[in-house]
C-alpha cells in the first residue's frame, strides 16, 4: 500500500496532492495554464507520491497507445449501410432553399451518374476556406442534427462516476 501524503510541504506553493493529481492528469491531454504548470512543477519538486502518479499515468497512457489496433470493421457493414440509403442514388431530390443542395441534386438527376455528380460538385462547389467548418459552438452543435445523436442512448451530462 503506497502512502499518499495528505498535504503539501509547508514550503511548497499552494497546490495540494488532490489538485496536483488532477493537474497531472489534465496535462496529459493538453497544456496547463502557466500558473497551474508552475504550481504543479513546484509541487512535484517536493512530493514523491505525486511524481510516482505522474510517471504511472504517463506509462498507462503509453501502454494504451501501444495496444495493437483492432481490425477494421467488416465490409459487410458498409454494404448494409448502402442498402439503407433513403432512395437510389440518382433520384432527384432538389431543395430549392439550398442552392448547393439543388446543384448537387441536379447534377445527379441530369443523368451524369453518381461519380460525375460528385466530380461536378467538386469542381463547382469546392468550399471556400470552410465556412462550414466549425466554430466549435456547442449550441450550434446541439442543434446540428435534430437529436439523432441522443436518440440512441442515454445522455448523462454530468461528470459522474
Amino acid at each position, binding site marked *: 500500500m503506497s502512502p499518499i501524503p495528505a498535504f503539501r510541504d509547508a514550503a511548497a506553493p499552494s497546490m495540494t496532492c488532490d489538485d496536483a493529481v488532477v493537474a497531472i492528469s489534465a496535462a496529459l491531454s*493538453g497544456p496547463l495554464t502557466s500558473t497551474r504548470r508552475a504550481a504543479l512543477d513546484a509541487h512535484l519538486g517536493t512530493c514523491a507520491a505525486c511524481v510516482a502518479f505522474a510517471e504511472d499515468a504517463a506509462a498507462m497512457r503509453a501502454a494504451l497507445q501501444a495496444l495493437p489496433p483492432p481490425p477494421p470493421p467488416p465490409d459487410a457493414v458498409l454494404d448494409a449501410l448502402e442498402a439503407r440509403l433513403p432512395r437510389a442514388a440518382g433520384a432527384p431530390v432538389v431543395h430549392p432553399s439550398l442552392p448547393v443542395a439543388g446543384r448537387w441534386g441536379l447534377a445527379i438527376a441530369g443523368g451524369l451518374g453518381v461519380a460525375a455528380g460528385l466530380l461536378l460538385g467538386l469542381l463547382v462547389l469546392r468550399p471556400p476556406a470552410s465556412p462550414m467548418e466549425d466554430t466549435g459552438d456547442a449550441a450550434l452543435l446541439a442543434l446540428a442534427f435534430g437529436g439523432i445523436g441522443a436518440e440512441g442512448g442515454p445522455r448523462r451530462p454530468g*461528470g459522474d462516476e
Partner: protein
Amino acid sequence: MTGPDLPTTSDELLVAALARGDKQALAVLYHRHSTFVHRVAWRTLGDGEAARDVTQSVFEGLIDGARHFRPQARFTTWLHRVVVNRCLHHLERAEHRLREGGHDDAALERRPAPEAASPERLLAGKELGAAIERALADLPPRQRLAIVLADVEGLDQRGLAAALETSEGAVESLLVRARQRLRATLGALRAEWRRP
C-alpha cells in the same frame, strides 16, 4: 470506391450529398471515419461484435439524420458525440440484461477468463496489453470513454468536453478518477511499466 477519391471534399458537404442518397458520399464518409468509430467502440466495449454493431448504428444515424444536419455544425464533433452515446447505450443495455437476471451468455463468454488475471501471468511483459484492456473494462462507462478518447485517440480537453457533453472541469475530474482506478487495478504492474 475508396475514400481518397474525394480527398478535398469537406465532411459537411458530403453529409449534404448523403442527404440525397448519394452512395459515394456515404462511402467517402465511411472510409474516412469508420476506423475511428470502430476503434473507440472496440476499446470501450472490448468486443468485436459489439464494436461492429455500434459502428453500423452510428452510420445508420448519420444516414437517417443527414437531412437535418446544419452546415454550421462541425461533423467530427457530432460524430464523437454519437459514438459516445451509442457506446453508453450499448453498455447500459448489457448491464440491464445482466441486472434483470437475463443471461447474456455471449457477452460473458467474450470476457477474459478470471484465471487469466493471476499475478504471475500479469507480471509477464507479454500480458501487459491484455492487463491494460482488462483494467479498462473495469472502469465505469463514462470514465472508460474518457480514457479511450483522451489516451488512445488523443482528444484534447475541449474535444473531450464536447464529445462527453460536459464541462472541461468535469472532464478533468472523470479523467483523474479513471487514471487512479486504472492505476489501482494495475498497481502490481508498476515495475513492469517503468521498464526502460
